[in-house]
């Protein structure tokens, strides 16, 4: 929030487009190129600012996905989390909440516990790689907060996730 306040009108426009892309979370080079290209430089607080939560979300990658009923981190997930570690170590003012989620195939209570397993797997990895545990906490939403709503594996795969949400800095 404190960073958002620094934005100019142009930057605000960029931020809006960044948000739209984030919601679709096809979070690769396209967004970044578009942002840096049109702004012609690094815009503080926007996705082009490497110290911004928006950059973390879109460029570092804020989420990892899991196989059905599993909480194991695959190599791709670990690569994403290594990026998260680096970002969190660099931007030491921020804290993070890791949200664990499950797809809709399963009963409510079990999915809450499964989401906790996933979020905890991420948290333990981040801590093991050096992020102080007092900057991290986790919560599970089970199957209550799907981002994709179809009842097919294509959607389920994206819903089985742990998302690292960057929140208010320690010092702010």
């Amino acid at each position: 929030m404190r960073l958002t306040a620094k934005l100019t009108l142009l930057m605000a426009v960029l931020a809006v487009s960044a948000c739209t892309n984030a919601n679709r979370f096809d979070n690769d080079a396209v967004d970044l190129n578009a942002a840096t290209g049109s702004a012609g430089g690094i815009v503080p607080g926007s996705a082009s600012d490497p110290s911004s939560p928006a950059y973390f979300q879109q460029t570092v990658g804020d989420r990892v996905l899991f196989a059905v009923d599993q909480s194991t981190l695959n190599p791709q997930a670990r690569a994403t989390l290594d990026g998260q570690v680096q970002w969190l170590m660099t931007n030491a003012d921020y804290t993070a909440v890791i949200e664990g989620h499950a797809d809709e195939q399963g009963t409510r209570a079990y999915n809450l516990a499964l989401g906790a397993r996933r979020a905890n797997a991420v948290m333990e990895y981040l801590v093991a790689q050096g992020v102080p545990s007092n900057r991290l906490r986790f919560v599970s939403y089970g199957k209550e907060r799907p981002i994709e709503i179809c009842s097919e594996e294509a959607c389920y795969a994206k819903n089985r996730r742990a998302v690292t949400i960057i929140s208010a800095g320690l010092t702010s």
Partner: protein
Amino acid sequence: MKQFVASLLSVCVLAFCVPVLALAQSGPLRIEITEGVVEPLPYAVPDFVAESASAQQLAQQIARVVADDLTGTGLFREVPREAHISQITSFGSPVQFADWKAINAQALVTGAVSEQGGRVVVKFRVWDVFAGAELGQGMQFAGTPDGWRRMAHKVADQVYSRITGESGYFDSRVVFVSESGPKDQRAKRLAVMDYDGANVQYLTGSSALVLAPRFSEDGQRVLYTSYETGMPRVHVLEVGTVQSRILQGQDGVMSFAPRFAPDGRTVVYSLTQGSNTDIWAMDIASGGTRQLTSAPSIETAPSYSPDGSQIVFESDRSGTQQLYVMSAGGGEAKRISFGQGRYSTPVWSPRGDMIAFTKQNAGRFHIGVMRTDGSEERLLTASFLDEGPTWAPNGRVIMFARETQGAQGSSSLYTVDISGRNLKRVRTPEGASDPSWGPLQ
């Protein structure tokens, strides 16, 4: 809610029909539910007699709710009013049994309603038409006009109980989660309703996610999980005042899946610490807690046996979710589910003889029942997603939530007999999930 409790001022037996009682109860009019009813019993409920001018509408409405309750069980079939030969114009007049025999109404319910000064009195009698005698005793209920549905349910409970020999379940309430909005923006709030979906009252707002409310044995309190603090925590709500508070003594990352012990003083629930979820018990008054399971697997969805001595729960310690029974004090648990697929959300029946559960197998969900040792498993439903059974107070009917498939999917409540018959949707104003059936009032 308070006025509901207060509205039922008195229940009394009409003493003047006592002599017929013994004769009637040994009569042939009887449905044995356990044997499985194929042919519903035909019965008639003419409009109740309005004994005061202002009771005219109530007299009709009450008779209709009685009929809806009875027919809704699938055990009874109403002979339509158009077929009636006799009209009941006076509650005290002799019944013309031949007229009811002629239309093959085996049971007849007659009643009268009077209303004076904001007080409604409902009287009724149940007749065994072919025996030509009254079944049980005439009774009356008194209350306020806005409690008329409850009085109708009480009449129906009496009729049901006299004919089946089992206690009824119509004058009961269900606490549930009312749902609105699309799947990725679903708003949830707690609500309570009559068993048939009438009189919905909302107990919380939808600003915080709320899950899985559970009635206490006496129906006065509700345990539920709320994200009000940002983390899932067990809350308790007093139904009468609609006041809720977070339970003290919840350590760990999150706590959920609470259920009352039969004595109402202890709560059993799941607590997550790190990656591990176990079952704990808490004394509500002191906040003192005790860990009941300690395995690295997921232990959740605990439910007490009605005598409070045992707890059934789900665990994936074997690799998939299965059902286990342990002593209420914790310790060694015995696995009771061994069929194909995964078993979850076990709930002990109020009679103590069965456990209802959710089963997931080959991409389908089922609601099922089994004996408490896991034998005689019977699946009652099958769909894309059936979940979370709760027992009617008489242990004969199960309510559960069914979510439909796809992007437009939504959740509704259904009931089904433990025989697997009579699957019916419960009408609610919005989507609905996580039902918990309260006691017979």
